[in-house]
């Protein structure tokens, strides 16, 4: 005879923490911070079209803003810390979610599923890895100037022009690919973040997708315009 009141054995399984929804929220919030930074960064980059002085002054201002109330570079470091925390949180969450995803489908389909959702959505993980590698290079190139052919602190304009010189086409190509990867990442990420933070409805879905696309395109074009201008001699 069978006794009543048995509980399903699976109840004994442990509950993963943080919950999948919490991880998504971390992804969304950290992604939003990174996106805000990207927008500001892109706008700053565009100052190169106003001449060498404009962008160099702007770069200097970033280091002195808040003075004399605050010591030099306070705000800059504040932004750097917040951004680093956000990016680390973003990556850690992504790694946890990816590992859970692999555990959730231990046996793959023999017949590969055709991509049905958006292409951008399917490429978030590899795109993210490419972006991370680029960020490391980008910091060494234009922040620490370790890898920059000009490498003069404060002379942003000259550093950029040297960086994207036609002879260094491979750097420009890498930069362009990375920026496009960022575009794709933002295209799905922005929409996804809004979905995660609960600002989506069937009616708003197309609008939100449109907004995400526009933001992604503007960012991509904005960032690409600088190397393109150097390459074509528009900025020299």
């Amino acid at each position, binding site marked *: *005879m*069978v006794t009543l009141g*048995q509980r399903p054995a699976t109840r004994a399984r442990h509950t993963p923490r943080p919950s999948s929804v919490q991880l998504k929220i971390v992804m969304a919030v950290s992604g939003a911070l990174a996106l805000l930074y990207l927008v500001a960064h892109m706008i700053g980059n565009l100052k190169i079209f106003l001449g060498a002085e404009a962008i160099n002054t702007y770069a200097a201002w970033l280091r002195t803003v808040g003075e004399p109330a605050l010591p030099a570079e306070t705000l800059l470091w504040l932004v750097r810390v917040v951004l680093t925390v956000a990016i680390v949180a973003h990556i850690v969450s992504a790694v946890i979610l990816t590992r859970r995803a692999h555990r959730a489908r231990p046996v793959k389909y023999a017949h590969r599923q055709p991509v049905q959702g958006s292409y951008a959505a399917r490429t978030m993980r590899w795109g993210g890895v490419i972006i991370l590698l680029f960020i490391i290079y980008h910091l060494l190139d234009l922040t620490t100037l370790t890898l920059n052919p000009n490498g003069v602190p404060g002379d942003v304009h000259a550093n950029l022009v040297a960086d994207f010189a036609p002879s260094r086409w491979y750097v420009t190509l890498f930069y362009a690919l990375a920026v496009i990867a960022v575009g794709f990442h933002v295209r799905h990420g922005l929409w996804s973040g809004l979905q995660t933070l609960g600002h989506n409805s069937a009616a708003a879905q197309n609008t939100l997708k449109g907004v995400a696309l526009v933001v992604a395109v503007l960012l991509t074009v904005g960032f690409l315009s600088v190397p393109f201008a150097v390459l074509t001699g528009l900025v020299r």
Partner: protein
Amino acid sequence: MTSSYTDYTVGAPVADTAAPGGPIEERWERRRFGVKLVNPANKRKMKIIVVGTGLAGGSAAASLAELGYQVSSFCYQDSPRRAHSIAAQGGINAAKNYRNDGDSVHRLFYDTVKGGDFRSRESNVHRLAEISLQIIDQCVAQGVPFAREYGGLLDTRSFGGAQVSRTFYARGQTGQQLLLGAYQALERQIDAGGVTMYPRHEMLDLIMVEGRARGIVARDLITGETRSHLADAVVLASGGYGNVFYLSTNAKGCNVTATWRAHRKGALFANPCYTQIHPTCIPVSGDHQSKLTLMSESLRNDGRVWVPKRKGDDRAAGDIPEDERDYYLERKYPAFGNLVPRDIASRAAKDVCDEGRGVGPTGLGVYLDFSDAIGRLGRSAVAAKYGNLFDIYQRITGEDPYAVPMRIFPAVHYTMGGLWVDYDLQSTIPGLFVIGEANFSDHGANRLGASALMQGLADGYFVLPNTIGDYLAGARLGPVDPGAAEVRAAEQEVANRVETLLSIDGNRTVDSFHRELGHLMWDQCGMERTDEGLRKALDRIPELRREFWTNVKVPGTGAQLNQSLERAGRVADFLELAELMCLDALHRTESCGGHFRAESQTEDGEAARDDKNFSYAAAWEFTGQGEPPVLHKEDLHFEYVMPSQRSYK
């Protein structure tokens, strides 16, 4: 000596001793006051087995657990949410009179007794009409998303056999939404520990100890293990037996095994010949067909049924001018028009097809045309009401019903017959309760649309939880020893049967037997029955059964998921039930509701009842496979709705 199955004997009448007397509107209240109560501390010690998780079984299991009983719930599907109640489309009746159109409990009672062609019990039907009010309240509280009007109040629509608008609905998926309500209540109790769920388990026998139902033998469909489950009472909510016809609107897995096994153990089976043929199904397209799909009766609210006036007219529907179309339901039944009850609409379709005026490649179909409704209401309004049904139709047939009329044909849909139960829903086996479509109680010889959901939920939520206590409080049951001889014998019987099915290793598949049986039943015991045809069937069925038991091929073993084996057991029981259905149909020489005997019709082809000789429920007692059964009659008394020739003209 060999006796023919048609040599049945008439035994002692059977009486409903649980039914209270008094004015009809007080009877249910009296009965509830009359039942013995089980005190809450004792409920916790009592175990109840519920077989089936449809509207009746799901709601009963949840409600019994809420009362404090220990419930074990069984279903053959992988989840209780998949029971076939989920496929009910149209709606659920309730006498709320929200429309102020003259509805009342009494009118619902009246319509249901009349719709059942005066072959149901007045007391039961009245109780059903009363409870209909509570069902809507209960379901709304559970979050069933019924259709609503802009003011936020519940919407209703009309259904066949009624002139008031009392059918509550959730688009074309009312059964699904009601079942999910019951399923969620059930899951809540599973989580709380009140219900132990056994999905993918099939009941294969009833365990009786000292004349009472004390448990079941069930097979775990995954491991193949058969074992006994013991309890203080057993509730069967295992649905109807329409799949005896092979092609029906039932799910593929629907079967008679649970009730048939109980019947073999002594429960009387009442009115097995009462089957409902639903008028609006998608016609059969070929021999490969495995099931039929219903198009909700609600479509007849706005769709108009017609065939060409001329025989053999093979023009496309759109090419047939208005004056060459015969809107035969509107012509023959001006008062109810396209909304006549199901049995009448089905037979009318059969008649025009028999005349050679049927449409479609097989000639077995009539048009259900929405062009008027689309013109009047607009395409979007029609889509809002019936969109999902139109989609189903288009997926199956590849035709667009917004552009060309649907083609429909009747198909087996529901069985009014079932195990005989008293007012408390208890069968003739003490401790065995039967609810929902599995019992015979409330619909007489024909069920009205949107009443199955009502009855299933009435039984499960409100009737059974109130009446089962009377048995449990009075029975003074001791525990059953799992090693008792009766238990061991039942287990052994099941094991032997499984073993036998696997060892025959013949040359025909289970499905081929099922198809042949289905064809035979549809031809001889379907929409129209004759003495000659039924006798033919009664000759053929035992032969087919013998062939089955000597020539069926069931591959695989018993210790695994074996879907052929599952089907084989079910078909074996259908092969016994079919015989009883034909006998019941043969003995009832009158026509009534879904049972139409060609010999008994009025001058204009309507069913002619014979109240003098057949105003009873026929409850059959099993005496052995192929042995003539014993007929026990329960006389029906009408005090409030006087039997008359049903007229929908």
